[in-house]
């Protein structure tokens, strides 16, 4: 667990340093102006420089403290299981905008809700499907009918509006 956590922390520190490098490089290409007439690049260059220094120090600290005690490490909660559910929920949030227009609101929401429900409770898929349909229909009625939110609609949504 400790080695895995070390790896995660090193990866995060390297990613932050990478972000700092890209940001600082881009900031240096902007016009910094003069001290009496600062340009659009002045503040980004200052932020980028500081960020680069801080993330570099952080990465060095993480590399030096691998498999040892590090400041703040005690505050990191030990991760429990269910990584699959985390990845699945994240994937569902990415997929939702991609299927929302073609499948329209109720079907797209049912698919996403079903995936999340099954990932969190794989034992009762039929119940999860029923619940997902219920969630999708209920959220359409609440947000579209009651709160006036414009949601993509197709035949199913029109039918629901006519029933409602």
């Amino acid at each position, binding site marked *: 667990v400790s080695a895995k956590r070390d790896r995660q922390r090193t990866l995060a520190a390297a990613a932050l340093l990478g972000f700092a490098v890209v940001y600082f490089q881009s900031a240096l290409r902007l016009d910094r102006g003069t*001290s009496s007439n600062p340009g659009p690049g002045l503040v980004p260059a200052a932020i980028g420089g500081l960020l680069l220094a801080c993330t570099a120090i952080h990465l060095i600290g993480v590399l030096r403290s691998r498999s040892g005690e590090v400041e703040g490490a005690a505050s990191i909660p030990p991760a429990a299981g269910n990584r699959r559910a985390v990845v699945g929920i994240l994937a569902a949030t990415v997929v939702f905008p991609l299927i929302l227009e073609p499948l329209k609101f109720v079907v797209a929401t049912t698919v996403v809700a079903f995936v999340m429900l099954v990932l969190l409770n794989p034992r009762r898929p039929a119940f999860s499907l029923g619940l997902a349909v219920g969630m999708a229909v209920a959220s359409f009625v609440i947000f579209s009918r009651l709160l006036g939110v414009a949601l993509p609609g197709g035949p199913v949504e029109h039918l629901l509006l006519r029933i409602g």
Partner: protein
Amino acid sequence: VADIAQSLGAGFVTALTPLYLYYALLGAVLGTITGVLPGLGPLGAMAILLGFTLTMDATGAMILFAGIYYGAMYGGSTTSILLNIPGEAASVVTCIDGYKMTQRGRGGAALTVAAVGSFIAGTISILGLMVVALFLSDIALRFGPAEFLAIGVSGLILLVRLSGGPILQSLIMILVGMALATVGIDFLTGLERFTYGIQELGQGFEFLPVAMGIFGIAEVLTTVRTPQLLLGRIARVRLRELLPARPEWQRAVPSMFRGSFLGFLIGLVPGPSPVIATFASYIFEKRISKHPEEFGSGAIEAVAGPEAANNAAVGGAYVPLFALGIPFTPAMAVVLGALMLHGLTPGPNLIKVKADLFWTVIASMYIGNLMLLLLNVPLVNVFVSILRIPRHILLPGIVLISLIGVYSVNASSLDLLLLAAFGLVGYALREVGFQPAPLVLAMVIGPMIETSLRQSLSISGGSLAAVILRPIALAMYAIAALTFVVPFVLRWIRKARPAAPGVAGPTVDEV
């Protein structure tokens, strides 16, 4: 005083209309529920509901959010006292003695003391908010860009010191937030920055998907990774058990007032003020108590003081937002986001230009506090039973509300992708021990700092000394620098001084 009374009276007339009463009640109930549920705090709830506030006016949105923030403080104490489960971070301290009181059969009394303490603190802090915000906004009208730069910079310095995590990590989060805030078209020159040819980034990152991703989706993902709570039998609290005995009142009431004043003052400072306020109040009550040995085994002052302090800190946190237009806590950044969604520009002028909004919100805070007192004590068993909703149903529901909330604002798929991306960023940062709250705060304060710096440099002819050495600005930098440096110096002195045998002062760890 007559003007204040008249404005407040007008605020009550508006706040007592059925629609605003409904928003206050809705906020109080939603807030109590989020306070009860571990994993979803007031910040997450406010971020998730941000998009839906577009269906109401700005005043309604402010009333709803105030209700959620106060309600969460009330709700958090319920599960802390009865089940030893802190519903949100500001209720952790209440677990220590609150749950011990429940084990001794005094859980009902602890709940009432927590609720009454919260009510007293809420009322005192709203009074403080009225007076201090009015006074401060009058002064702030005379501030120039150099002073606003000083407020922003010293606010961030204090945030680094007080946000709880390692200083370097907080600093990195603030710088990343400020870097993200520079993406988009530069307001002074019209030039694009860091858009890399992506047209949609021209307007910069929308606050809504960023806040909802980092506080809403990331909280859900973190909750998924934590083990499910196994609830045993939840003891029912009978109505007659809710009344504290006379000696309990005598010990609790002074603590409520002390906690209220302490909490309000801490609320004015950047950082997670409700959490800091509860710890500070606990330590203070223990120091001055005639029975310090009872702390940790069911001292009623240890429930009354911290519970009052966290509610009072909420009122204090509203002061910089209303008076200066600057959020000092992540929750206030979300409130500011709601104001901006409604086209309002927060700043010292807000109280004058939108006086009706300010006074209606103040009046609704009084009403919301009363609602919470009347709701929470008799309905305690109902709120506790919310914990029985299975997590595998609750979490997908929260994700769906977040997705619809973001989509409802611009009907934009890009916003939904940003929501997912910032959800991942927020989750990953928490996993490796970073607190993402300073990132979001810096994203909000960053543009103000940049504008103020560039304007003040232009005005001063490029002299940084002239910008820093203005009296008010210098005082603010000095206070921030002292707050930053003093703990290091004290730690160094403590290390350098040989410890006297057998003498040890109380530390936070002992709490």
